[in-house]
């Protein structure tokens, strides 16, 4: 025993000097203690900010990790930062230790070797994640390969104020017709905002006879033909948008006050529980409900990734692991807090942990898992990038 302890003491500095042994959780937590993790995450939603602050308190209590939320307006800023640091040769102790990331940003960071990993599937709480039933191993069809760990599930829902718009709509065609009858009452965030781009993808997925073509990367040959119906749709939709499409809300949450004031009757959200949370926070009127389309809507997972040059990788892994804990997941799903979908597999949880989720009141405006229906796959990230660029040229600089 004594020899082992001495041996351990001799070996201990080695992983710290080289890199962390991600499979040795005890070593990871030991190294994490006292580290500061700069988590770059979108800071536009006050409920998310509050949740992140709570995560910071909890990892400080349990692991002695200090969490600093760097509030971004655009996740791309963080990607730029890491890229510039790599170009400048700053290969250790970069400014960013963790990023809330998805889709195109992840694909470009992974491709440019800017990420630390694989680490996600070695985290202790990965065992509780529903890796079979939920899209937590691919991010917009790109395999995650353990370079990012999931922490929330999202799905497109439409948010409507039943006081002004009692009925749900079944398809994007129905939405187009409804805006013609109710001009100025619908809008979506301005692409390249994440949710705005998602709306464009949702249109495309819904109006294409066979959306499976979107699973493969967009090419110069097929792009124009496949997206033509989308642009035709938008040409018809735009004149009947809020402010005739001359201005757009900046983000999804920026549409809440517009609904609260009756400027909009209908908008879109990527979080099935967000409407209930907003009602609880006085941001939306109690008459708001959500619906999905007949063919289902796009869904994906939110991930966190660790840049290759983070100086607090162990601390970041501790935070990533905590985010997948039943405690954090149940809190995130609570509509009074965040209302995000969980990434966990209920069958893998202990009875006590499952009770945390069973006790949740999902909220008046939140659909049950059954009501949420079919989850449609995200198109390959190359589509989103090209569609968002194209949108900016066609609609973003028109006036």
């Amino acid at each position, binding site marked *: 025993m004594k020899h082992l302890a001495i041996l351990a003491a001799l070996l201990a500095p080695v992983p710290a000097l080289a890199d962390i042994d991600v499979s040795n959780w005890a070593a990871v937590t030991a190294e994490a203690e006292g580290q500061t993790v700069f988590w770059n995450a979108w800071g536009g939603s006050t409920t998310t900010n509050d949740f992140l602050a709570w995560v910071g308190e909890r990892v400080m209590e349990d692991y002695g990790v200090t969490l600093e939320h760097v*509030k971004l307006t655009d996740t791309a800023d963080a990607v*730029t*930062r890491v890229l510039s640091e790599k170009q400048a040769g700053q290969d250790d102790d970069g400014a960013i230790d963790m990023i809330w990331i998805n889709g195109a940003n992840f694909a470009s960071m992974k491709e440019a070797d800017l990420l630390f990993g694989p680490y996600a599937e070695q985290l202790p709480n990965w065992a509780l994640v529903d890796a079979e039933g939920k899209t937590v191993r691919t991010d917009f069809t790109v395999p995650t390969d353990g370079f990012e760990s999931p922490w929330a599930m999202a799905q497109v829902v439409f948010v409507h104020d039943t006081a002004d718009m009692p009925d749900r709509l079944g398809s994007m065609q129905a939405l187009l017709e409804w805006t013609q009858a109710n001009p100025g009452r619908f809008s979506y965030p301005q692409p390249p905002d994440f949710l705005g781009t998602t709306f464009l993808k949702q249109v495309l997925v819904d109006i294409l006879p066979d959306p499976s073509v979107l699973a493969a990367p967009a090419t110069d040959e097929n792009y124009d033909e496949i997206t033509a119906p989308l642009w035709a749709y938008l040409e018809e939709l735009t004149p009947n948008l809020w402010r005739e499409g*001359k201005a757009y809300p900046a983000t999804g949450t920026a549409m809440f*006050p517009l609904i609260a*004031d009756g*400027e909009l009757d209908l908008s879109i959200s990527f979080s099935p529980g967000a409407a209930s949370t907003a009602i609880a926070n006085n941001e939306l009127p109690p008459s708001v409900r959500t619906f999905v389309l007949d063919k289902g809507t796009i869904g994906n997972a939110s991930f966190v990734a660790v840049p290759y040059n983070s100086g607090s990788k162990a601390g970041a892994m501790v935070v990533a692991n905590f985010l997948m804990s039943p405690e954090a997941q149940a809190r995130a799903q609570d509509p009074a807090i965040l209302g995000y979908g969980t990434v966990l597999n209920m069958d893998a949880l202990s009875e006590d942990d499952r009770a945390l989720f069973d006790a949740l009141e999902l909220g008046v405006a939140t659909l049950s898992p059954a009501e949420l229906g079919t989850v449609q796959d995200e198109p390959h990230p190359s589509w989103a990038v090209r569609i968002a660029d194209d949108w900016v040229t066609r609609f973003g600089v028109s006036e």
Partner: protein
Amino acid sequence: MNRRRFLPVLPILTLLAMLGPVAAGLWGTVLPAFGHLPAAGQTGPSLDPFRDLFGWAGLPRAMMLSISTGLLATGVSLAIVVLITAGWSGTRPFRALERLLSPLLSVPHAAAAFGLAFLIAPSGWLSRLVSPALTGWDRPPDLLIVQDTWGLTMTAGLIVKEVPFLLLITLAALGQADAQRSVTIAQALGYGRVTGWLKTVFPRVYAQIRPPIYVVLAYSMSVVDVAVILGPNTPPSLSVQIVKWMSDPDLAMRLEGAAGALLQLALVVGALIFWRLGEVIVASLGRRWIAKGNRGRFDPSVAKGALFAGGVSAMAVLLGLVVLTIWSFAGFWGFPDAFPDGWTLRNWMRFGPGTLEALGETALIACTVASVALILTIGCLEAEYRYGLSFSQRAVWLLYLPLLMPQTAFLPGLQTLMLSMGADVGRLPVMLAHLVFVLPYVFLSLADPFRAWDTRMGTIATALRASPDGVLWRVRLPMLLRPILTALAVGLAVSVGQYLPTLLIGGGRVATLTTEAVALASGGDRRAIAVYGLMQTGAALVPFALALLLPALVWRNRRGLRHG
């Protein structure tokens, strides 16, 4: 270091602190604009960045927005200020407006912009107050007011902030223009109040306030935070687009951004030349107008109109702060209710801790920067007094140079440069960047009172065997307590309001009240925006209140110094 040697170095150090970052930043802009950015794998020279820039479909409109908002905001603010001063200086309403000046001036641009947006949007407070009773609206009309295509709301946001600034500058210039006697003589000759003032006083005043007017023009053309909050987005103004390019994940976009920054600089230089030509034309027209001898039949209505416009612009800021306060305590508040359903402390409980953290960062940066600026300024002025090292009239333009240079032209370059040198972003570089903007304002607000100090006091003190340092510390500075505190408050307010330097140079890691408030703008949570906006306003306003209060307290038993 020997103190005698140290003092003369201060003016050089001051110029370096102001102009060094500007020059470095421009260098860091020029290189990538011509295709040289090794960090992105590009080695120039090439003209591709400009080709990309001119290929962007939104460019003509973005340029137009920059030019129109700049010229309109400057022209309208100047007209309001000149006509108010012409029609009302020395009267009671004018003194009331004067008293409003310092608080209005210190309200940060972002907070004023939020207030204006909450006031005049279709669902804003003004519309709520009269709906549905007067308008019949039970839901807000679908009108493009905020973020309008022509940038008029953004221009209005700039005007309400520039009017107090120009009015203060004009007041300072009036003292040296012998205004009262000129107007009296003109009135004796039968000229109306406004016409008499314009014909006799205005030419002399304008010569003095020309540099600040140019600053207003350059600032309005390249402002970012006000444009993000109030300006159009399809496309945005050029400066906002430059910031977007600079934060694109694709590093190659920085080249296009740098080219855009140089274009922005060219636009500002062009607008300044255009304005200068306008001066020449107005001067020659003005001479003819003076020679015609019109006595000014419409003077009373012109004066009333100007006072109304000035009042509206002051009220826009004040009511904006009121509506921010209401939102910060609002429970659910739907349209068209004039007031919220319920009042709650919940918003302050939720966002208060966050604002306190940001306030700490804001205060640390502002206090450090304003103190350094004050020390450098006093050092310069004292060196000027002791060694006759004065800034010549031409050198005054050096003070204005950092303010005339569009922020978007050199800050992105400074960021790129620091990054490629491996300098870590953080608080210290942010402070240096703030100093560039704080120093000129502190210098300009302290220089006149410092020079106006009666040097015979120094002679008397020297006769009583006080050393030059003794004169400075024990006589001059105490006597100048009020202007010193005011200059410090100006410096603090300028630092608190800085958005772009904090955002770009801080790399997102330095979170002040201003960066947090503008970041919240995209989220649209009006309660959070209100809390942050009010805290930001407080951070800038409290120092002004102290600058007024402290001298009164310190000199409560020194009647002669109270107004010093």
